[in-house]
């Protein structure tokens, strides 16, 4: 606590409060609900969300404040010096029990068929402090399910009218396409006909909804929340580097959810990042090492394949054609190879239209549709769009993952037709390399390995393994490590963290960083401020 106090600028006055018997010191103006979080007390709430303006409509966060005649809503009451707050006093519990009973009056109690079940705050708090049995005997209100457009489905019967979705669209997206229609017990969340939730960031209303009223059509009836395994990861949709949770069921990615990080994406994730995950599960993967012998592909074991690749690379200049979705670790090891043998590295990044989330500073679906173009730049790789390197017939072309998809620019076709030996390290064998590569080494995609990406602001962020590797595929940094080792550099490292440590020791930008210090929130590279210019905003 003392360190927290020291970090705060001197002009901020600190206020001492006691919540559930635990005393804390928070800046003046902090709400009780936020102050409670600092002492590990979660005050039940529905309409409150740290990313949205305070509405105070659900009455769920009522707490007992000493010397207050009435219970106070913790989301809309700021702390005062010496205040003593009781969250679980009998009076407060009784009030919240009453609120829950009202909220459940028109609720269909259809948890067994509801997608939100298992991650529903209405379910959780009712279990925690609601009545065990309903006293309501009258018929319940019924409204039909409505398609809100985009990826969103509205089930009005389950809605508790917390208005988080309305405030998100109004104050964060700044496109108020949702409203509270009618009033009193007839109220529901409405929209105007022909004006759907089509904004690039509208899908976040599904995450914001504390109950099962707003559902993802993509995830509808796909899995129960408690069957999912969750791993911290980074979205590869663009260079923003939004923190995500990869949710898998039986080793298949079924959903991506935003993971809160106030330094990057706050609580949000755009539609593109959210829904573009099916490629992760693709079955047509390269899952065995292959070597071409007399023009025919032969499936071989890893030792033979690595020997063949090392033999092809030994003593040659190497041109690395890298995907900007390769991790810093992989790109670093390839760069080591270039440093030893001569050559150069380029990456090819796809571009798309920018889509900012207007209500949040510096959060946007970026034009560069890859996770680690900045990392590649920091490690000395050049953008293919700025010109292709000259590849001699005597060189080796090392292709790192999926850079040869779609229509190839002339710069690339030139590189491919140079006559150089091609060694491919990637998750799939692209058609263009089918008859061209000499060795194909299968690697895992970013959900099957661990590593780091550097986002456009130079923030280095870790991603963890979420699924198992297909077949014999190995993490790309591991494959590169083996290759570097075989080429005699003695620089092979067999833990991702060790590769990163070596990277941090070699490159000034990454100095002082390690997996331990990055943790799951990431840290900016040491010269991030100057490096901003490395990630220009590309007008498309």
């Amino acid at each position, binding site marked *: 606590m003392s360190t927290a106090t020291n970090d705060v600028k001197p002009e901020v006055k600190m206020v001492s409060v006691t919540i559930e018997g635990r005393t804390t010191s928070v800046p003046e103006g902090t709400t009780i609900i936020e102050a409670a979080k600092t002492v590990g007390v979660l005050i039940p709430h529905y309409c409150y969300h740290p990313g949205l303006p305070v509405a105070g409509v659900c009455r769920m966060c009522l707490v007992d404040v000493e010397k207050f005649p009435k219970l106070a809503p913790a989301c809309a009451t700021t702390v005062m010096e010496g205040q003593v707050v009781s969250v679980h006093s009998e009076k407060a519990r009784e009030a919240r029990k009453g609120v829950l009973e009202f909220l459940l009056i028109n609720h269909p109690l259809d948890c067994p068929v509801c997608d939100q079940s298992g991650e529903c705050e209405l379910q959780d708090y009712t279990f925690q402090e609601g009545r065990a049995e309903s006293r309501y005997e009258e018929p319940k209100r019924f409204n039909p399910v409505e398609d809100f457009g985009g990826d969103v489905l509205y089930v009005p019967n389950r809605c508790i009218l917390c208005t988080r979705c309305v405030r998100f669209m109004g104050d964060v997206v700044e*496109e*108020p396409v*949702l*409203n509270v229609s009618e009033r009193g017990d*007839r109220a529901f969340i*409405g929209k*105007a006909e022909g004006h759907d939730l089509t904004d690039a960031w509208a899908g976040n209303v599904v995450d914001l909804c504390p109950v099962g009223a707003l559902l993802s059509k993509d995830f509808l009836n796909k899995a129960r929340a408690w069957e999912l395994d969750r791993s911290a990861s980074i979205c590869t949709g663009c260079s923003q580097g939004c923190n995500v949770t990869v949710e898998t069921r039986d080793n298949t990615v079924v959903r991506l959810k935003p993971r809160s990080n106030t330094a990057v994406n706050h609580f949000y994730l755009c539609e593109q990042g959210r829904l573009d995950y099916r490629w992760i599960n693709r079955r047509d993967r390269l899952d065995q090492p292959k070597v071409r012998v007399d023009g025919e592909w032969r499936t071989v074991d890893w030792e033979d394949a690595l020997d063949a690749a090392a033999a092809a690379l030994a003593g040659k200049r190497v041109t690395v054609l890298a995907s900007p979705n390769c991790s810093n670790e992989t790109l670093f090891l390839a760069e080591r190879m270039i440093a030893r043998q001569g050559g150069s590295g380029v990456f090819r990044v796809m571009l798309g239209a920018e889509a900012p989330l207007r209500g949040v500073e510096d959060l946007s679906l970026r034009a560069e549709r890859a996770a680690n173009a900045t990392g590649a730049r920091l490690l000395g790789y050049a953008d293919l769009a700025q010109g292709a390197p000259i590849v001699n017939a005597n060189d080796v072309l090392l292709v790192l993952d999926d850079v040869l998809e779609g229509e190839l620019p002339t710069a690339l076709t030139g590189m491919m037709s140079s006559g150089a030996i091609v060694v491919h390290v990637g998750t799939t064998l692209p058609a263009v390399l089918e008859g061209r590569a000499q060795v194909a080494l299968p690697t895992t995609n970013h959900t099957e390995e661990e590593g780091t990406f550097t986002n456009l602001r130079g923030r280095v962020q870790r991603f963890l393994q979420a699924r198992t590797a297909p077949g014999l595929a190995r993490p790309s940094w591991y494959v590169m490590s083996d290759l570097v080792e075989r080429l005699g550099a003695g620089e092979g490292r067999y833990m991702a963290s060790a590769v990163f440590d070596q990277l941090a020791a070699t490159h000034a930008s990454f100095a002082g960083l390690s997996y331990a210090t990055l943790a799951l929130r990431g840290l900016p590279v040491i010269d991030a401020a100057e490096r901003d210019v490395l990630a220009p905003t590309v007008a498309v």
Partner: protein
Amino acid sequence: MTYGPSSGQLVRPPEHHHDEPYVPVFTGARRDELDTILSRYPTKMAALLPALWMVQDTYGWVSEPAVEEVASVLDLTPAYVKGVLSFYTMYHQHPVGKHFVQVCTTTPCNVCGAEDVVKAFLEHTGCGELGVTSPDNRFTVIEVECLGACGFATPVMINNEFIESVTPERVARIVAEHD
């Protein structure tokens, strides 16, 4: 989204006149009138209620295209306008009869026989049911809460006309006077 009939609520009529082209309200003199209203408020958004009244005065109800028009003249989204429109029960979201009859049925009037006045209106206008427009499109009858004339039970409002001390016997004549 629709609801069944409940007190004070209109019942969506079976026929809907959505196919007729919508004629904008805020043109010519009415546009000037709106501009005068706008000059009284700090923001355009603040003039939403008067703008909706102007639409209702013109067409008798506020249709979807009217919502779009109001939204565009006040720089709002249609959803926002709809939210406000649906909050207030005095704005009609469906067509109503030429004469909109509101009968007070709150406690004092109820004691003095307002229920029978309502029944008489439903019978004589041909509406048959609360919130339903008569087949000749002349009347719509609804119950309302206190009209503030408890001393003159039962008060009835037909459009902007206020009629006090209505008894079931007077209803036939009142209906006849409103063609």
